[in-house]
């Protein structure tokens, strides 16, 4: 791309002006630096928070476009659903169980399936974690405490990771290609893995409603974004031991709509209350965007204020500089430089200052994040994996240029209006 003569001239002359006034350029940059850095920091923070929130949303609810269905409560819902969706592409139904692994006939160390780091006390037939989340222990209060852990167990009819992209921490994810095995294969989340590792419980799996205990195979560990102990298994392997209480959720991809239609028809025919059929399409923008928007607006408002002060600094220096350069601008007009180009020269200088400042602020931002990652990375896992978002650099550039234009506009107009005849008089 070839630049026009006017633009090249503006850049050449602007560059000469900056080189001739290095200290002033530096002072302008200093006045603008904090504002641009504020914008870069706010944008970087917002992007990082946005990413974290979206990752969390994907892990807990599903990717964008996933259809999440809550099924009507009916005696045949479980059977009809499993029969309809098992093996169907683009679907995954979750059957839920309350499960315990460990010594039989004891109260689990985390009765109620609580988080292992937040085990609290028992309060009159309830066990509560330190946040006040309580679960009834009515059924277990006669059992002595023992080496067992309780958790939520989900039976899957299809690959849930196509909707909720759990990160595989170790081992393998569930294999849905072969037939079911007698020994249920479990993929546990990190919280449950922590509990199993901490309490070294015997490998005996009790499912609520089952008459016999199974011997589970733990085949992998995933990060599912859940702080409660949870495990995932093939639905058909669990059904061998106990029928599920209910279908907790059904996930459908957008092209699995025919399956949903068949399921609806069959449930209607079975007399299920279809007014309880509820589905929602996951839209991360709707979930996350709105939550972060207000926060982002508040911080951007503050950043804009600081930026405005920076622009005022440029304006101040710019007006003083134009005052000093009256003869130069008049001379340039005398040798044929159009008014518009003179304004362009002043704007080019302030925009170059803005760009240089943006570069410096972005550099400091990158450096700051790197330092934060090294210092706090161990305590904050999010920081350990985060990279400086390019959006923040772009925001810095835009802010720098905007401040340059804002601060340079009035000096530019003044420069363009300098009368040649008055200045160049002998």
């Amino acid at each position, binding site marked *: 791309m070839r630049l026009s*003569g006017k633009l090249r001239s503006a850049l050449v002359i602007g560059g000469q002006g900056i080189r001739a006034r290095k200290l002033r350029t530096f002072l302008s940059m200093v006045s603008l630096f904090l504002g641009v850095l504020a914008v870069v920091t706010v944008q970087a923070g917002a992007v990082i928070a946005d990413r974290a929130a979206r990752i969390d949303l994907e892990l807990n609810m599903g990717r964008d476009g996933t259809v999440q269905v809550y099924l009507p409560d009916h005696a045949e819902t479980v059977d009809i659903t499993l029969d309809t969706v098992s093996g169907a592409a683009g679907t995954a139904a979750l059957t839920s169980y309350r499960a315990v692994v460990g010594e039989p006939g004891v109260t689990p160390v985390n009765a109620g399936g609580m988080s292992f780091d937040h085990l609290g006390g028992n309060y009159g037939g309830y066990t509560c974690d330190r946040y006040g989340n309580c679960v009834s222990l009515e059924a277990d209060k006669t059992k002595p405490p023992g080496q067992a852990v309780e958790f939520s167990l989900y039976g899957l009819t299809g690959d849930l990771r196509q909707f909720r992209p759990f990160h595989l921490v170790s081992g393998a994810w569930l294999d849905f290609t072969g037939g079911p095995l007698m020994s249920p294969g479990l993929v546990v989340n990190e919280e449950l893995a922590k509990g199993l590792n901490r309490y070294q419980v015997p490998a005996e799996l009790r499912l609520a409603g089952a008459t016999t205990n199974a011997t589970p195979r733990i085949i992998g560990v995933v990060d599912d974004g859940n702080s409660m102990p949870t495990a995932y298994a093939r639905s058909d392997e669990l059904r061998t031991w106990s029928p599920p209480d209910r279908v907790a959720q059904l996930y459908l991809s957008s092209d699995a709509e025919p399956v949903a239609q068949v399921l609806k028809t069959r449930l209607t025919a079975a007399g299920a209350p279809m007014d309880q059929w509820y589905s929602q399409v996951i839209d991360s923008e709707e979930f996350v965007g709105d939550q972060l928007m207000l926060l982002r607006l508040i911080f951007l408002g503050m950043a804009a204020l600081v930026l405005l002060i920076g622009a005022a600094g440029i304006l101040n220096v710019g007006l003083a500089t134009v005052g000093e350069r009256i003869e*130069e601008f008049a001379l340039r*007009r005398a040798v*044929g430089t*159009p*008014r518009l180009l003179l304004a362009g020269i002043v704007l080019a200088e302030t925009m170059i200052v803005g760009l240089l400042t943006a570069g410096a602020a972005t550099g400091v931002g990158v450096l700051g994040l790197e330092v934060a990652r090294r210092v706090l990375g161990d305590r904050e896992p999010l920081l350990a994996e985060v990279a400086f978002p390019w959006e923040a650099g772009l925001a810095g550039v835009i802010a720098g240029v905007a401040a340059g234009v804002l601060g340079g506009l009035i000096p530019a107009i003044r420069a363009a209006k300098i009368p*040649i005849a008055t200045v160049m008089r*002998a």
Partner: protein
Amino acid sequence: MTALLELSGIAKVLTGQGQPRPILTGVDLTVHTGQSVAILGRSGSGKSTLLSLIGLFDRPDGGRYLLAGEDITTVSERRAARLRSERFGFVFQRFFLLKHLTAAQNVAMALVNGQGWLPRRSRRATVMAALDQMGIAHLAKHKPTRLSGGEQQRVAIARALVRRPQVLLADEPTGALDTETGSLVIDALHAATERGCGLVLVTHDQAHAARMGRVLRLVDGALVQEVRR
């Protein structure tokens, strides 16, 4: 033959502080290619105002101004800028060199003005040729603060001539120089007329004026006295 410059009945009223003051009341002036004209007059008689009207720094309040047959009396500022760049060269008493630029960069200022674009190499060659014409090519990299008055004025003349203008306008170019150096500057301006450039010289110096083809005197807002040599 079409005149290079043709001014008829040019009037200008100064409207600064106080009462409006007619400074030019009816100036008639014709300059042909290669001609040199000296304009004499008392301080405040309107010599510089006339020159700024000829150089399109300002517009007349009355009269008619033709440049090579084209009526430019009320030309737009955009067109005026182009004409200043392509047709006129200016030399001032105070040199008006930018201190932060070298002699070569000061000359190049007339080329880097948004009116077309010369690649760096061509630009450098053109600038060096202009400086060489003034006999100061060896000072190309010097900044103005390291040059004598005469050298600075020759840099200014090189800047005025670098675009090969049709008209050279000089407003007391020797005013800040000693007699000998001033004479050298007038030589340089004269040389430009020999290459076909029209020259309008505003001066107080009778001796320098006498070296021009025509000498006019500005009295009471008009060029009333023409002295033929």
